[in-house]
């Protein structure tokens, strides 16, 4: 079963279509992508999910956004729907209630994800959810669950590079480094790559990601690598490796720049309204302005129906 080792990948035409029909300027689009993936990671921590589950949610989100405009739904709802779906299919399911609580907390003023300078004082009132809030959240999340599945034709399998990376490191005898040090560095590169706006996990196979992460870790630690083109043993060619090495190393600098370009995005959980404000500031038309109010109205109607 190759599905354990390989992933379906975005085709060049899909990537092209996404770039050409984008509703957002590229830098804003990337900022949204990054903020949402970070949010998923934070939620995964709070839901006490292992990284292998949260990372799958990151990948599903990337796949989903390849076809759908990020502005079509609230970012936090998509993030919640992916993590809920992935956890449900895995060995550690989480209830909609848990997911709802976590996202309510993360979006509150109390959220530790967005430090405001002083230590957040724990004030449960800030993230208390009424039954109606919960119901509305759950409805949105479950609607998106179905939506995500349909646009991925129900293929939720994600192969991650982590186990491969460890196997490769064993093969390389951990490059004569302390095992934990080199493994940790490798895993860190893989985790960071999940956040890269270059969408590395949906354009390259796990074996390439694992190999590049090891290469980067080795360089950071000054470990000696085999002199031959060892990456070919892991079925990665030089060009792929070179691209990935640069892509992985550039995420950090790119994040710094992001902080400077969008100072407001880091203060709160990113919402569509914030992005619209940003576009407005730039004097740009918001892609689907007419669509948003209708959705809200639907929401209200649905809430009233359900009472």
């Amino acid at each position, binding site marked *: *079963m*190759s*599905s354990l*080792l*390989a*992933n*379906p*990948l*975005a*085709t060049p035409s*899909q990537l092209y279509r996404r770039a050409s029909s984008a509703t957002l300027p590229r830098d804003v689009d990337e900022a949204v992508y990054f903020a949402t993936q970070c949010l998923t990671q934070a939620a995964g921590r709070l839901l006490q999910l292992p990284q292998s589950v949260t990372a799958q949610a990151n990948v599903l989100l990337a*796949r989903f956004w390849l*076809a759908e405009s990020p502005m079509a739904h609230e970012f936090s709802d998509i993030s919640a729907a992916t993590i*809920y*779906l992935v956890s*449900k*299919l*895995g*060995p550690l*399911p989480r*209830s*909609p209630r848990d997911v709802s609580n976590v996202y309510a907390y993360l979006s509150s003023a109390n959220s530790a994800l967005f430090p405001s300078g002083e230590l957040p004082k724990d004030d449960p009132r800030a993230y208390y959810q009424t039954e109606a809030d919960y119901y509305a959240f*759950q*409805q949105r*999340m*479950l*609607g998106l*669950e*179905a*939506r995500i*599945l*349909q*646009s*991925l*034709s*129900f*293929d*939720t*399998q994600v192969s991650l590079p982590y186990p491969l990376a460890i196997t490769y490191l064993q093969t390389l*005898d951990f490059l*004569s480094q302390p095992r934990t040090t080199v493994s940790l560095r490798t895993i860190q590169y893989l985790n960071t790559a999940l956040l890269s706006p270059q969408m590395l996990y949906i*354009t*390259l*196979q796990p074996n390439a990601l694992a190999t590049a992460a090891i290469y980067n870790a080795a360089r950071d630690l000054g470990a000696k690598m*085999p*002199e*031959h*083109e060892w990456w*070919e*043993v892991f*079925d*990665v*060619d*030089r*060009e*792929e490796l070179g691209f990935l090495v640069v892509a992985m190393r550039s995420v950090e600098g790119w994040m710094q720049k992001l902080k400077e370009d969008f100072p407001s995005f880091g203060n709160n959980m990113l919402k569509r309204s914030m992005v619209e404000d940003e576009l407005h500031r730039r004097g740009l038309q918001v892609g689907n302005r007419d669509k948003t109010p209708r959705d809200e109205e639907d929401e209200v109607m649905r809430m009233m129906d359900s009472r």
Partner: protein
Amino acid sequence: MSTKPKSRWASSAEDAEYEARQKKEKEEKRRKKAQKLQEEEEEKRKALQAAASQAAETNDNDDNDDAASSSSRPSKRRKLTPEPASNNSSATLLRFDVGTWKPSRSVDNYDKLNDIEEGTYGWVARATELATGRVVALKRLKLEAGDPNGLPVTGLREIQILKNCRHRNVVAMEEVVVGNDVSKPDNSIFLVLEFVEHDLKSILQDMPEPFLSSEVKRLLLQLTSGVAYLHQNYILHRDLKTSNLLLSNRGLLKIADFGMARYVGDPRPKLTQLVVTLWYRAPELLLGTRTYDAAVDMWSVGCIMGELITREPLLQGSNEVDQISKVFELCGVPTEDSWPGFRRLPNARSLRLPKQSPLASGSVIRARFPNLTAAGASLLNSLLALDPEKRPSAKEMLEHEYFRQDPKPKPESLFPTFPSKAGQERRRRHEPDAPVRGQAVALGDVDFSGIFQGRDKEERGAGFSLRMV
């Protein structure tokens, strides 16, 4: 090869060569497989195109032509980069033929012909794909409107498992299509499955003469090789029974209905005991074990073997208590010797068993199946071992002497054909008194919410005492 780190890298020229050679072989194999897949895809797509251009005529000829033309074409491989200029490296890199994702198609691409089955667990219909005229089975996932947990995890598991499975004895899923209310969370979801003419249960019910032992052997071999494939891929079926086994007009058996199936990896997920239709449920499940494995499927295989021989379900209990007493009647009463540790199972603690007399406690399988050869009886005996540890694995079973003895398993092509039922009319409801299906489907929730709906019945069985003699 671990002498000194240096020498390892030094000798890697030969290593690389060896590796390359091995990889080549492997890749060749994989590529062939992928090509086959690709061809199927190609065929589908071409067929689609063909049908679009000449909308009116969609006939079988198309398919054949396409198959011929696409097999002559080399399979397309995904290339992100041009082939490396091979100046110094002769390595062939392994590339998977993976494809991409695209939205599910609409169910409107299919035209319903007739219902096959509508029961507690959903709805299956025969349909044709409009573009190609191919006949398929459409199975609608049962969705609870307003389920607080969203789409049923059992259905999603079924889809994922079928997507990953490719074996001649496992029913093939072609795609998943959806209804037209795309925005609704309870929009219908249909599995497009290959259409197979019969199910084994209906055949057994209608056949005037039982299967010949050569036929039983062939059917069992096919079932077992399908089960072996599933177990090898960490899948437990958890609902093997004759009504879930399909038989084509060419004698090909296929395992279907993966609504209860799931992956069991490492770490072992928490598993629910509420699985398998009662008549096929293994004793450890009836006694409430919290950990079980592939042996529960092998018990079901044993029940199916008995049923293939007699045309009657082997152990037809009316409820859990009755079921376990039927099991003990047939297989004997467990003892610490025959099943070490069974007393520790939750429902066995309060179990009162008759005083051990060797006569009452032994298995009567041999006597129930007088026409079975010694090898056959020993196989059935081992499949129906009370202790799950003593049941053979599917892989071991394939090697059993029973299959090598005369009469030899009959070739599939020589199988009799049966009047098609699914073709025109609705299939009969099976096992009207099997209480499980409805119950079982609700179980999916159990894993998650921890709210044990429909569980009260099961739990009542916990404190039962059993008097025999």
